[in-house]
């Protein structure tokens, strides 16, 4: 509503300092706040959403669920390797750890927040390691090794994962997700470094660090949600 009000303003009728001018002392530069990185993060997450939505749409169209002619009739589901569930658990646990870190950072305990953040980061790393194992195991299936969870496609069709569209999509999409997780780990490490250096006596430094932890947690929640949606896609098709 505020947006609509802002966009229907007749700007020529209202000369003056303007409704959105802050009431802070007008002329001092030091009184204002720094940029809020959260807005940048939100815009970035929008881009990431589009990226995964497009890949998922391509997945569904290639599968043949699209009203057009797409889909070659060669689609065989990849099945549900148990590692998939374990990795999902790790990712969710990492999210929880980030929220714990956020709680402590807000409570003004940067050192303990740092410990929780490190735990979250470790869980995130474990997720990536789990994904690597999963990709290797799947590749093994397609190379002919028998394993309980090997997808139906892998038996008797020695074309490798590249020849199987469902597997190729799985590698593509989960790989892209993994890269985003790695990026998140870098941000998490930087935030951890900031927490370690924070002067516990300075309120501004503490609030700033808490905000950084909050953005980390937000990114992590988002990537966990993306993963859940992707899981839904993989498991239901």
């Amino acid at each position: 509503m505020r947006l609509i009000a802002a966009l229907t303003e007749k700007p020529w009728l209202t000369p003056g300092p303007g409704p959105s001018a802050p009431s802070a002392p007008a002329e001092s530069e030091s009184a204002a706040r720094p940029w809020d990185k959260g807005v940048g993060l939100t815009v970035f997450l929008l881009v990431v959403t589009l990226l995964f939505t497009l890949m998922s749409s391509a997945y569904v169209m290639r599968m043949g669920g699209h009203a057009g002619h797409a889909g070659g009739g060669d689609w065989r589901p990849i099945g549900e390797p148990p590692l998939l569930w374990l990795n999902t658990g790790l990712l969710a646990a990492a999210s929880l750890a980030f929220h714990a870190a956020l709680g402590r950072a807000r409570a003004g305990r940067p050192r303990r927040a740092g410990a929780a953040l490190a735990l979250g980061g470790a869980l995130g790393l474990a997720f990536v390691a789990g994904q690597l194992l999963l990709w290797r195991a799947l590749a093994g299936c397609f190379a002919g090794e028998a394993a309980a969870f090997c997808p139906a496609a892998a038996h008797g069709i020695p074309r490798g994962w590249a020849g199987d569209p469902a597997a190729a999509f799985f590698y593509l999409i989960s790989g892209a997700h993994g890269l985003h997780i790695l990026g998140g780990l870098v941000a998490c490490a930087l935030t951890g470094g900031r927490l370690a250096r924070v002067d516990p006596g300075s309120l501004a430094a503490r609030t700033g660090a808490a905000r950084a932890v909050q953005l980390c947690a937000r990114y992590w929640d988002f990537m966990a949600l993306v993963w859940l949606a992707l899981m839904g896609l993989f498991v239901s098709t």
Partner: protein
Amino acid sequence: MHIALAIALLVLASILFHALSPWWQTPIASNWGSIDTALHVTLLICALAFVGLNLFLAYTLWKYRHRPGNRAHYEPENARLEKRLTFWTAIGIAGMLAPGLIAWHEYVTVPADAAVIEATGQQWQWGFRYPGRDGVLGTAAVEHVDADNPFGMNPRDPYGRDDVLVETNELHLPLGKPVKVVLRSKDVLHDFYVPHFRAKMDLVPGIVTYFWMTPTKSGSYEILCAELCGVGHHQMRGNVIVEDQRAYETWLGEQMTFGQMLAEREQQRGAGGTQLARAAPPAGAAAKAGGR
């Protein structure tokens, strides 16, 4: 000053160019007059807008050019005027969209009595297939393509035996009969385009596409490829010959069917035969299938 004159002259030049240039649509040779109608309606509405808006622009530039002492009028907006302009624009848009959509509806609705003919594309030539006496095209796919079977005919499909195969870039069509042209590509995207027919559709590997039309004027027309398909794109040509039913049938009778082609190849190779011929069902099966 000069710019106002230039704009007015450009409008005039555009109209003259339209009237005097020798380049306009080829004479139509199919039933797609409705497409031409939609095009002409669109052209008329757009031409009116083009002339009107630009002459208004030229007049404004001349009338309100800067002269010492001039001051612009202050008017932030005029909601009434903007609403009226929006309304009339919408009317104009609807006026051209309606014939466009009607023609498109016709274009995508194939009449039930249309004869089926297949055009296949590969870099950089055309091939054509007629369903033969049974009126049904046999199944075909890229997986069956080899040197002996350029159309990728399914050797196990009895419907394919009497299909007439033409490898010479020349398509014959009977005059005045609706025809559904089924399109298949063996390698990359192509597009079957005959300017005189107005119709056009891409050939997409992996799927079968189609369009339909009724040739209404006998003669020979050029087929162009209208979707970039590699270095030979500009040389991927063919001819379509529209002729009366008798001439068409005579021509069709002279072409080889898939069955004849197989038999001939078998003869040439002696008793060994090709794997393809051995896998084929006995001739009786084809005759029986043809009778259905």
